[in-house]
C-alpha cells in the first residue's frame, strides 16, 4: 500500500495497461472479419447489414459491438455532399441574361454568388501577375475581348527581371542591410537564370493576393476574439479543426463551390494560412500589459484609437510574426493549390514529377523554398524594424531608396532595350528568361539520384525487407487487432490520468466520432503510421535538437535546415524515396519522418536554450558534469516545451501520412485522395478530413493538458 501511495500515477498507468491488454486478448477476432480495402466490397456481399436514414442507405458488416461499432454516421458524408449539391445546383434558381450566347438562362443563386467571388479573386491575381510578367486580362476586365483584339498594343508589358532583381536588392538593403540585399539578389538571379521566372511570378502573384487577405482576415478575427470572450470560445474549436485537418480534404468542396483555377487555389491557401494569424494576433493583444491600456485610456483614447494607436502598435511584434507565418503557410500550399488549378511553380513541379524528371522538379522546389525564405526574412526584418521617430533626415536621406529604385528602373529599361537589339533572334534574355530556356542542372541531379541508387540500393533493400516484414506489418496487424472497446479504454483512461474526467470525455468524444464513421479500420492504419512516424521523429528530433543546442553556431545551422525543409515541397523527395524503397509503407514513413522531425528538433532546441543561464551557473557551481547538467537540469525544465514540439510532430506526421496516399497507402488518406477526383467526393473529403483532425486534436488535448500541468509544477510561465 505504501508503494501505491508513493507512486499513485504509475499504478494508475499499470492498471490501465492491464485492462487494455486484458480486453485485447479477451476479445477474439470475429469470424469472417477482414480489412475492408474498398467501397465496392460493400456492394455485392449478401451478408451485409444495412439501415436507412435521411433517405440514405448505409451498408456495412455488422460485428460484435465490442469489436467494431456500427457506422451510425455512415449517412453523414453522403448527406453533406447531397446538401452541397442541392445548394449549388437547385436552390433558388435565378434567371440571367447570358451575353455570350444572347439567351436567358437560369443559374442557382449560390453558384452565381460564388462565381462572382471567384471572378473578383481571379481579377486581383491576374492584375498582380500581369504587372509582373505582362498580359492582357487586366485591360480586358475594363474593356472587352473584342477591344483588345482590335488594339493589341494595350497589352501590359511586364517588368524586366533585372528591375525586379534590383528592386528586391534595394528592399533587402533597406530592411536589413547588406546580407539580406545580397540574398535577395541571388534568389532573383537564380530564379531567372534557371528559367523559372514565369512560374515563380505566377506563384508569387497568387501568394501576394492570398497573404494580405489572410492577414486582414486573421487580424480582424483576432481583434474580435480579443474583445469578446464568446467569439473566442466559438472561434477556438474552428481554428483547432482548421489547423489539424489535412488540406486535401477541403480541396474538393472548394473546387465544387468556387470552380477550378487560380482563385480556388488562393481560397484554399487562405483557409490554410489564416488560423496562425488569428492566434498570434490574439496572443499579441493578450500580452499587452494593462498599464499600457490604462495609459491609453488616461490620454483619452476612444475605442478605435485605443485599438489602432495603442494595442496594435504594442502587439506589433507578435502580429508581424503572424504575417511571417502567413507567408510561410502560403508557400507551403503552392504545390497543393495546383491540384485545383493554381498555375506556377507547384503545377510545373507536379508535371515534372509525372514525367519522372526529378532534377526539374527539384529546381522548381528550390525556387519555392528560396521565395519562402526570402519573404520570410524580409517580413521578419520588417517586424523587427522600429520606426525612428526622432531622426531628422534630409529629403535625399528619407527618399534615397526610392531614388535608387527609380535609377534601377531606368538602367533595367536601357538593358532590356539593348537586349532587344542584341538578341535579335528569339528571346530577349535581358527582359525575361523564358521558361525552361535557362540553365538546368537536371543531368547533375539525375546523376546524383543514380549515384545514390548504385551505392546504397542493395543495403537499403535488405533493411527495407526487414523493416516491412518484422516491424511494420506486425505493428499494423497489432493496431487492427485492437477491439474498439480496448481502444476506448486506452484513450479515455489516458485522458483521465492526464487531465481528469474532462479530458477523458473530450478525447472519448473525438474517438467516438471516428468509431461511428465508416472508416474506423482505415483510421487505425493512419494511427499506426502516424505512431511509428512520431516515435521515430521524436527520438531523432530530440537527439539532434539536444546536440545542436549545445552551442550557438550549430543551433543556427540546424534551425536554418529546419526552415528550409519545412517549405521545401515534400513531393520532390517522394519520388527518389519511392524508387529506393518501392511503393511501400517504408517510403511513406521516410517522408513522414523527414517532415515530422522538424518541429521535434525545433522545439527541443528552443526549450533547451530557454533554460535560464543563472541555472546553468548554479549547476556548474555545484560541480555537475555537462552530461548531468543536460539530463538533470536542462531536460526536466525544457520538457514541457519539448512535449509541445511532440504535439506539433503529431500534426505534421498526420499531414504527411495523408500525403503518403500519393505513394500508395490504404488508410484515410487513400480515400481523401480518391475524393479529390470524385465530383461527389466533397462530403466524403470533409468527413474524412474531420476524422484525421480528430485524431490530431485528441492527442493535442492530452499533451497540452499534461504540459500545462507540468509547467505549473515547475513554476514556468503559461503559454
Amino acid at each position: 500500500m505504501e508503494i501505491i501511495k508513493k507512486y499513485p500515477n504509475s499504478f494508475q498507468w499499470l492498471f490501465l495497461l492491464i485492462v487494455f491488454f486484458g480486453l485485447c486478448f479477451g476479445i477474439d477476432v470475429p469470424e469472417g472479419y477482414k480489412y475492408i480495402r474498398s467501397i465496392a466490397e460493400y456492394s455485392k456481399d449478401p451478408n451485409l447489414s444495412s439501415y436507412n436514414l435521411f433517405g440514405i442507405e448505409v451498408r456495412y458488416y455488422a460485428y460484435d459491438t465490442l469489436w467494431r461499432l456500427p457506422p451510425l454516421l455512415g449517412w453523414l458524408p453522403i448527406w453533406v455532399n447531397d446538401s452541397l449539391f442541392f445548394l449549388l445546383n437547385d436552390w433558388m434558381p435565378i434567371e440571367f441574361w447570358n451575353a455570350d450566347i444572347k439567351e436567358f438562362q437560369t443559374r442557382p443563386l449560390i453558384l452565381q454568388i460564388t462565381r462572382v467571388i471567384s471572378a473578383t479573386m481571379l481579377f486581383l491575381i491576374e492584375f498582380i501577375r500581369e504587372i509582373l510578367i505582362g498580359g492582357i486580362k487586366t485591360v480586358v476586365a475594363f474593356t472587352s475581348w473584342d477591344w483588345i483584339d482590335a488594339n493589341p498594343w494595350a497589352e501590359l508589358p511586364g517588368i524586366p527581371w533585372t528591375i525586379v532583381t534590383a528592386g528586391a536588392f534595394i528592399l533587402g538593403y533597406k530592411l536589413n542591410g547588406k546580407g539580406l540585399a545580397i540574398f535577395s539578389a541571388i534568389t532573383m538571379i537564380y530564379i531567372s537564370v534557371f528559367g523559372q521566372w514565369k512560374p515563380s511570378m505566377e506563384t508569387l502573384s497568387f501568394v501576394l493576393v492570398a497573404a494580405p487577405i489572410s492577414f486582414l482576415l486573421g487580424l480582424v478575427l483576432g481583434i474580435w476574439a480579443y474583445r469578446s470572450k464568446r467569439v473566442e470560445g466559438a472561434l477556438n474549436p474552428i481554428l483547432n479543426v482548421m489547423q489539424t485537418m489535412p488540406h486535401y480534404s477541403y480541396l474538393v468542396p472548394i473546387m465544387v463551390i468556387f470552380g477550378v483555377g487560380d482563385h480556388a487555389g488562393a481560397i484554399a491557401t487562405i483557409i490554410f494560412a489564416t488560423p496562425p494569424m488569428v492566434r498570434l494576433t490574439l496572443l499579441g493583444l493578450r500580452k499587452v500589459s494593462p498599464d499600457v491600456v490604462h495609459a491609453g485610456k488616461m490620454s483619452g483614447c476612444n475605442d478605435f484609437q485605443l485599438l489602432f494607436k495603442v494595442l496594435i502598435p504594442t502587439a506589433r511584434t507578435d502580429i508581424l510574426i503572424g504575417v511571417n507565418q502567413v507567408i510561410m503557410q502560403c508557400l507551403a500550399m503552392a504545390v497543393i493549390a495546383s491540384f485545383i488549378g493554381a498555375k506556377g511553380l507547384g503545377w510545373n513541379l507536379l508535371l515534372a514529377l509525372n514525367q519522372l524528371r526529378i532534377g526539374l522538379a527539384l529546381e522548381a522546389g528550390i525556387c519555392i523554398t528560396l521565395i519562402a525564405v526570402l519573404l520570410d526574412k524580409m517580413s521578419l526584418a520588417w517586424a523587427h524594424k522600429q520606426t525612428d521617430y526622432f531622426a531628422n533626415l534630409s529629403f535625399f536621406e528619407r527618399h534615397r531608396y526610392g531614388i535608387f529604385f527609380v535609377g534601377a528602373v531606368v538602367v533595367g529599361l536601357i538593358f532590356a532595350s539593348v537586349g532587344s537589339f542584341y538578341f535579335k533572334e528569339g528571346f530577349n534574355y535581358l527582359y525575361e528568361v523564358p521558361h525552361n530556356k535557362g540553365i538546368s542542372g537536371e543531368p547533375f541531379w539525375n546523376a546524383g539520384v543514380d549515384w545514390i541508387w548504385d551505392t546504397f540500393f542493395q543495403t537499403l533493400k535488405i533493411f527495407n525487407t526487414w523493416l516491412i516484414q518484422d516491424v511494420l506489418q506486425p505493428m499494423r496487424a497489432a493496431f487492427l487487432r485492437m477491439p474498439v472497446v480496448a481502444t476506448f479504454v486506452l484513450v479515455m483512461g489516458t485522458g483521465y490520468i492526464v487531465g481528469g474526467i474532462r479530458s477523458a470525455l473530450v478525447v472519448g468524444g473525438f474517438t467516438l466520432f471516428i468509431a461511428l464513421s465508416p472508416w474506423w479500420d482505415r483510421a487505425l492504419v493512419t494511427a499506426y503510421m502516424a505512431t511509428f512516424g512520431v516515435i521515430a521523429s521524436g527520438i531523432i528530433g530530440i537527439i539532434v535538437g539536444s546536440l545542436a543546442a549545445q552551442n550557438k553556431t550549430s543551433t543556427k545551422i540546424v534551425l536554418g535546415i529546419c526552415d528550409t525543409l519545412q517549405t521545401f515541397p515534400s513531393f520532390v523527395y517522394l519520388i527518389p524515396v519511392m524508387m529506393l524503397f518501392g511503393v511501400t509503407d517504408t517510403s511513406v514513413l521516410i517522408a513522414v519522418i523527414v517532415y515530422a522531425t522538424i518541429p521535434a528538433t525545433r522545439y527541443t532546441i528552443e526549450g533547451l536554450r530557454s533554460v535560464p543561464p543563472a541555472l546553468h551557473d548554479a549547476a556548474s557551481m555545484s560541480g555537475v558534469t555537462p552530461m548531468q547538467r543536460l539530463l538533470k537540469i536542462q531536460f526536466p525544465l525544457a520538457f514541457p516545451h519539448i512535449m509541445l514540439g511532440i504535439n506539433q510532430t503529431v500534426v505534421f506526421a498526420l499531414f504527411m501520412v495523408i500525403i503518403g496516399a500519393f505513394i500508395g497507402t490504404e488508410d484515410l488518406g487513400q480515400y481523401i485522395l480518391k475524393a479529390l477526383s470524385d465530383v461527389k467526393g466533397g462530403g466524403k473529403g470533409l468527413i474524412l478530413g474531420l476524422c484525421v483532425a480528430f485524431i490530431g486534436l485528441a492527442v493535442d488535448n492530452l499533451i497540452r493538458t499534461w504540459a500545462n500541468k507540468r509547467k505549473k509544477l515547475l513554476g514556468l510561465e503559461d503559454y
Partner: protein
Amino acid sequence: MLTLINYGGNMIKAIKGLIVAAIISAFSLAAYAADSKKPTRIPVHNWSSQIVMAHVIGGIIQDMGGNVEYVPADSNAVYESIRIGDVDISHEVWQSAFGKSFDIARDKGGLLDWGDHEARTLEDMGYPNWVADKGLCPGLPNWEAMKSEKCWKNFVTPDSGGKGRWLEGPQSWHQDLMPQRLEALGLADNWMVKFAGGADALWAELAAAKKEGRGTIIFNWTPNFTDGAGFTFIQFPPYFDGCRPVDGGDGKCGSPDGYLKKAVNENWTKSHPGAAAMFKKLSFNTSQIGAMAAYVDIDKMTHEDAAKTWLKKNKKVWKKWTK
C-alpha cells in the same frame, strides 16, 4: 437591359436576375459577330500528350482568330467543371478511366459529347518488354502464363505477403476491377493487387524495377510515353459489354478497346460556333498523339514548344478542320 423588367409576374425574380445580369455583363461583353473573343478555356491535366494537344488545339483556335486560356484541372473532376461552365472543352476523354465521370456529367445536362478521335485507347495491366526478354514470366503476354509458379515467384515484393504483385493505379481509377479480376481468373491465391498513389508512383516503379532488373507488372495505357521504351499489355480474355462485375458479369475479361472522346460545354458551342465546328472535325490518330508526347518525353521540349513544332510540321492535317 431594360427588357429584363418586362419579365412580368415575378418581380423579385426579375430584380435578382437584373442584379446578377449586371454583375455578369460587367465581366463580359455585349455584342459579338461570329465567335466570341472570350477565351476558350482548355483544361490541362498531368500527362504530356494531353498538355501538348491542349496547346495544339489552342494554337488552332488562335489561328482562327480566337483567344485561349489553359486551366490546370483534375482529369476526373473536369467534367463537372465543363458542365457548369468553368472550363469549356475537354479533348481526351479516356473510356476506361474517365468514361464514368463523363457519363454522369453528360446526363446532368450542360455537357455535350463532341465525337471521338480516330485513335483508340487501351488501359490495362502490362509489363515492360525486358521482363519478357529476361524470361521472368515465360508465356506472356497470354494471361495464363501467370498461373505458373515460375512466373509469380518473380513478382514477389516484401509487402506482398509472398504473392506476386500487380501494381495498379490509384483506387479511384477503377475501384476494385483488378482484385475482382484476379479472383475471377483464379489467380488470387498467388497474386495480389497493390494500389499506387498516382501515375508518378507507377513510373517510379518502372524506373526502379528496370534498374534493379526485377520483374514488375503495372497498370499502364497507350498511347503513352512508355510506348517508346517498349511496353506490352497482358492479353486477358476479350472484353464484351456486361462482362465486368459492376455491370453484372463474372469479371473474367480484360479492358475494352476504348474510345478517346471530346467533350464540350453547351454554351460554348453557341458562343464559339466556329471553334466548335473545328473541334467537332478535329481527330487525332495514335501516331500523331505519340509524336506529340515524344517531343516532350523524349526530345525534352516544353509542352508549348512541342505544340508549336507539331503545328508547324502538320499544317496539312489541321488546316482542313478550320474550314
